[in-house]
């Protein structure tokens, strides 16, 4: 009896440990380990993970390509704008087919824009800011937008709008949901890859199959990948190990710098390093004492050890940026110095603030994002330095939804919190324009509750001025004022780090989407 039991156990062990082929080593199948968006509706979530669906399953009128990103005609062949900047017309390519074989026409574009606005989810934000008075199909291949007033970044935000197949979605509309419940786990696009709804487990698994009939064709890629299995690995350690072992072909674009050295030693792994337009900021609630005192904000700006954070913690995989505009974008105030780490200066500024009655001795709360190690590392470094000048800082772990929700009102916004601003569209409006215009208070981007009428005027002028050179000057002036007021602590421009198996070739990075456009990629033999 005992012997039989032992044999059974031995058989089980042999079955379990006997070898298997690593998953990622299949022919022309890539396992993509980066995040999936919260759902698959291209008009619902609007964040870094949602770019995977928007760039691969759907198409847009214009698309950002390359680094620095260039706006290129995509579904549209060309566009014209009226002299007053209110009327925009887009000429569509002819013969573009959706995945179901039906033709993509101007009616689909109009319906998609109406759907984005009607659904009112995050993707609607930039379009609503443009205040579209009317969108219509002039003919089968011409779409016309009429704006209430000129909006200079309009062309820059056009890639936000992805085009969905009206005929596929409409039968699934329930009430006023615009088919959101259905499209959240299905596809209706024309993009280079077709999603397989049967494979979908929200945030866990999705298969993408190549769309051979994509309108851009595949001549740019001799051996495109036929099947992409998106299998996000949530835990950083597991993700790195999975990449080393070959269970996934690509990780995410937030590879922690302390893992770079480890991965660099793995023969079959390469690390793609690309300067991005994602900026790292420590926000200050400018309405809450002592942060309502500019001297105290300058004190805090001098108390953060930028060089140690970038050099030691991030191992120089970031570039110091002291302003609220990416360094590699037009409108950046060249030569701006910002604040340097200097505890003597910080102490002097704090003393000035204290003399004016600012309650500098109270406990300051700095909220970080749980799971994002860099925010914790920055906070701990900051905490240890401000202690040297007699300030009491408490680090509070929090989650992204809680933090963004709390920024709806000044009294619920934390004293300080840390986040990045990614490249959603390429225009200073995406950064300084939406971060420091007091008219946008109540959004997470404007969560420092900064208010300066001069800055408001400059930003609003820049928003309506069609001349890019003049706009650049306006943003530069605004940036200098905001930096002088030490509204926040601007730390760096991100160098995005993504680990990939060496067999994955053709990776092309663009700050919009962080290189998740898969049509360029192929697998080496």
């Amino acid at each position, binding site marked *: 009896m005992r012997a039989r039991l032992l044999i059974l156990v031995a058989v*089980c062990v042999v*079955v*379990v*440990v*006997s070898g*298997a*082929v690593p*998953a*990622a080593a*299949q022919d022309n*199948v890539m*396992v993509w380990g980066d995040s999936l968006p*919260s*759902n698959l*509706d291209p008009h*619902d*979530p*609007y*964040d870094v993970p949602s770019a995977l669906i928007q760039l691969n399953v759907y198409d847009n009128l214009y698309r950002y390509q390359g680094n620095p990103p260039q706006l290129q005609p995509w579904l549209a062949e060309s566009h014209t704008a009226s002299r007053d900047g209110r009327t925009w017309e887009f000429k569509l390519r002819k013969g573009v087919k959706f995945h179901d074989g039906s033709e993509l026409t101007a009616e689909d574009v109009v319906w998609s824009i109406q759907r984005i606005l009607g659904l*009112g*989810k*995050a*993707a*609607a*934000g*930039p379009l*609503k*800011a443009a205040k579209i008075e009317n969108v219509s199909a002039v003919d089968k291949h011409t779409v016309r937008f009429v704006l209430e007033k000129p909006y200079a970044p309009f062309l820059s935000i056009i890639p936000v709008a992805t085009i969905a197949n009206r005929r596929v979605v409409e039968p699934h509309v329930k009430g006023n949901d615009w088919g959101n*419940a259905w499209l*959240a*786990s299905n596809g209706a696009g024309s993009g280079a890859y077709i999603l397989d709804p049967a494979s979908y*487990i*929200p*945030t*866990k*698994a999705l298969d993408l199959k190549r769309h051979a009939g994509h309108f851009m064709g595949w001549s740019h890629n001799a051996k495109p990948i036929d099947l992409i*299995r998106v*299998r996000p*690995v*949530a*835990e950083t*350690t*597991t993700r790195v*190990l*999975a990449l*080393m*072992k070959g*269970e996934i072909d690509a990780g995410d674009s937030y590879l922690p710098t302390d893992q770079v050295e480890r991965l660099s030693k793995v023969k079959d792994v390469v690390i793609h390093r690309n300067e991005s337009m994602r900026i790292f900021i420590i926000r200050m609630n400018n309405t809450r004492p002592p942060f309502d005192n500019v001297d105290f904000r300058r004190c805090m700006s001098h108390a953060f050890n930028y060089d140690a954070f970038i050099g030691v913690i991030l191992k120089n995989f970031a570039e110091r940026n002291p302003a609220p505009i990416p360094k590699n974008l037009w409108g950046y105030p060249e030569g701006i110095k910002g604040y340097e780490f200097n505890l003597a200066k910080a102490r002097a500024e704090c003393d000035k603030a204290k003399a004016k009655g600012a309650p500098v001795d109270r406990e300051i709360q700095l909220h970080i994002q749980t799971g994002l190690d860099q925010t914790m590392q920055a906070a701990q470094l900051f905490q240890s330095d401000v202690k040297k000048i007699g300030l009491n800082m408490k680090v509070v772990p929090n*989650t*992204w*939804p*809680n933090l*963004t*929700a*709390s920024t*709806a009102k000044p009294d619920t916004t934390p004293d300080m919190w840390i986040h990045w601003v990614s490249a*959603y569209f390429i225009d200073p409006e995406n950064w300084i324009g939406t971060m420091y215009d007091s008219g*946008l208070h*109540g*959004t997470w981007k404007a969560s420092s509750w900064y208010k300066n009428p001069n800055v408001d005027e400059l930003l609003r002028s820049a928003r309506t001025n069609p001349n890019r050179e003049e706009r650049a000057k306006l943003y530069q002036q605004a940036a200098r004022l905001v930096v002088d007021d030490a509204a926040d602590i601007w730390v760096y421009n991100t160098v995005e780090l993504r680990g990939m198996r060496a067999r994955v070739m053709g990776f092309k990075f663009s700050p919009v989407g962080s290189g998740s456009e898969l049509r360029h990629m192929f697998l080496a033999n």
Partner: protein
Amino acid sequence: MLRFFLRRVLLVLPVLFGLLVLTFVLVRIVPNDPSAALAGQNATPEQIVEIRAKYGFDQPLIVQFGIYLRQVVQADLGTSIQSGRPVARDILQRLPATLELTFFALLLGAGLGVPLGVLAAVRHNTWLDHGLRFFTVGGVAIASFWFAIMLQLFFSMQLDLLPLRGRLGTAMTPPAQLTGLFVLDSLLTGRFDAFRDALRHLALPAVTLSLGAMATITRFTRSGVLETMQKEYVLYEIAAGYPRGLLIAVYVLRNSLVATITQIGLLFGALLAGAVVVESIYDWPGIGSYAVTAIFTSDYKAILAVTLLLGVVYSIVNILVDLIHGLIDPRVATEL
């Protein structure tokens, strides 16, 4: 016995109601606005206000709870803010993965815990007993995330024996769904390749999850067996020269396992809840990782549903344990 059963079921209802109230209040009193989460990143303040009104988040909390309670009674757990799908659908898709992991962890925990407990009792106060005590204390004390990473590093990275993560290799087509438990479904459909792959993927998460349970079962079994061995009838049988193995297997063990069986029942619920950490590390697509995502994204309908599900499972297991007690000892049924 029927009255006993009905009484136990009725007692569960206020417990579940209390659980719902508590979770609802906890989820909603934190400085958190589900309408902002629903609107998503880059939403304007106007969009958030529109969504707040559209979904009734501007109503008093008690009204919102009343609406939610009515939905739950009608078996509608609502729609996930994140996935945009009915929460019940999300949970049903992921529940088999968690059940499979929990069953195997319990099987491993009980399958090894009971013999080890007997061994510790029979050889009590020897080096073996001390060694097992060290193991059981460690088993309860060791953080599962640390243990999981150690297992991954050793068995997957160092020895390259077992997969690191997931439920099946990405090259493997899942077996036709009958129960949703891959091991069982692959056997039932004759998919032995999938059976082997599912077992291989199950090994490390199940061992990680089972460690605490195994330690607890070992301790309970040890003390149960030790206590029984002090009984007069056992002493008599020893004196009468009964074969030791037969005595332990037939008389001692059978009379010592009541507390252990109760513990195993309760551990099932605890393992379901404990799967949260293990599933996250092993990337196991079950309820645990669903709960983690729900918490990080403030998906409050999903949080409530998972809590309710765990509450229901705990309650059912409690009822079953009480029933078993009632069957074994009718005095329990009369007292309650």
